[in-house]
């Protein structure tokens, strides 16, 4: 199952804490299509668009959620799921 999703991750703190999230993101076997982050009131929220096999996307979300500094990981909007990738995607 191939999944395209947009994840929003909220952490306390700032760039340091976001770096931890990105360290997990780097190790996920998924493809990132876009990413943006905002910093306010002692929090950072990073939203990223990614796609990959459902279990790999799941891995990224679970690993991010396990970090103590992560306050929430939300897939937004709804996940789009396909049986197969629409386009050939080369994984890292």
């Amino acid at each position, binding site marked *: 199952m191939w999944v395209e999703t947009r994840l929003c991750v909220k952490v306390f703190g700032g760039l*340091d804490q976001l770096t931890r999230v990105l360290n997990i993101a780097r190790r996920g076997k998924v493809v990132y299509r876009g990413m943006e982050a905002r910093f306010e009131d002692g929090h950072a929220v990073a939203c990223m668009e990614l796609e990959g096999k459902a279990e790999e996307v799941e891995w990224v979300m679970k690993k991010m*959620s396990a970090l*103590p500094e992560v306050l929430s990981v939300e897939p937004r909007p709804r996940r789009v799921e396909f049986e197969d990738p629409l386009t050939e995607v080369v994984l890292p």
Partner: protein
Amino acid sequence: MGVIGGSIMPLYDALYPYREEIEVVMFKHEQGAAHAADAYGRIARKPGVMVATSGPGATNLVTGIANAYMDSSPVMALTGQVATEVFGRDAFQETDMFGVVAPITKFVYQVKKPEEALPAVATAYKVASMGRPGPTLVDLPRDIQVAKKTEWKGELMPVDFSKYATAEPNLEDVRKAAELLEKAERPAILVGGGVYWANAWEEVLRLAEYMLAPVITTLPGKNSVPFDHPLVMGPAGMHGRAEADAALANADVVLAVGTRFSDRTVGRFDEMREKVIIHVDLDASELGKNLPTAVAIRGDAKVALRMLLDVVKSVDSEERREYLSWLQHIRKEFERAMKEWERDFRGLVPWKVLKTVRRSVPSDTIAVTGVGGHQMWAEIHWDILVPGTFITSAGLGTMGFGIPAALGAKLAARDRQVVCIDGDGSFQMTLNNLSLVRDYDLPFIEVIFDNRALMLVKQWQMYLYERRIIATEFKENPDFAKVADAYNIEYRRPESYEDLERYVEWAVRNGEPLILDVLLDNEKDVVLPWVQPGKWLTQAILPPGMDVSLEWR
């Protein structure tokens, strides 16, 4: 535990008035402090604390932090850092420690304002042992350390502690698991390190008896259950016991508790995927990470197993008894073959050395190991009689772990005997910390498996690289007797098992440290069974003369 330096001096200075209450232990190398803190944490079940200065002091901790991360060990590191005003200017001994350890810590924080310092340290200490343990680090710039004291009323950093609240296992899932176990033809219980942390070995054994199911462990899981129970097959995997490899390979339903299904244990994932897997783990991110599960139960192992015991119906079938006796037959064959193999060796035989030492020390002796062939021999042949007495570098496989870990174990349990099963290569990586034996009165027995080689790697060269032996044989070892003498430790080179027994008993009786230099044949010291890379558990190379199939029927 640590080494002092410019950027961490104010913190050490603040310890000065408390030096009677907080034991400050000076190591000779920060890596030693890190491994000692790791072993201390595993035995004391609370974080060992390592302290280092900025730059090289902090980077010397990194291997130890990575080790604690891979083995889920509770430790906290406090590192000095250059003053915040010179951040990013490559000031003397500036290293971006946050950047360095971000991927290998459970929690890390660089303090940038004085009022954050106490909440950060308190949070790091707490997080290290909450839920699944792990290493944490707080980086403390010099100006923060010398800043005026701020008021602190016990506030913590705004992390989400609810993540570590042990989730109540879902009863429906537990019921499903029970049903699968009842229906299974050849169920098995795979035990990881998590069972030790949850104190759940009694529940594991009871369930095994209830189900007539063999118990198999991972390498860290060896620490979790006693080996002297007839249903405990011991560790499976790359260098596991034959009966354990068979029990895992032939299981149709596997109840895995507190393990991440390392490639070292399961060998090949394709065959594992065909099994029905019930996975119990505290860490939600482990469930389904390496293998798909039929039932995933998030929660404390002890609680989950008790719930399972409440609902599961005991199974006592002829089929299961027959299967168990087949596994026992493999064990007997394995032991018979090992006995025969002894005759091939000149001098002492590695596994008999372990059995002899085991016999000569109390049952609650803590065994720690280096990394290499000797560690694998210990995995297969060192019998754990009391859970929580086996400390090894399983996930990272860090040579040099042994000596500092022995010191850390002894710091946590001064009233108990500690034995370090070491390799001559591993020994030489961290022997500089031996001076702590006398400095802090931390006697332990160091057994060096002296094969003048990085033998486990040489074994791969012999079998997988057509004997192209390169960079694995030492020309000559330094005189270990003189090394021992330099640190004022007794040294013996046993010629027989009687010698060995006598020396060990002397050390135990007198509470003295001892270095035993056990010379081994470096052509014969090949660890078997061996599941070679890419092979399945039933394809393990067994000891010579062991002619049984590990495949059921």
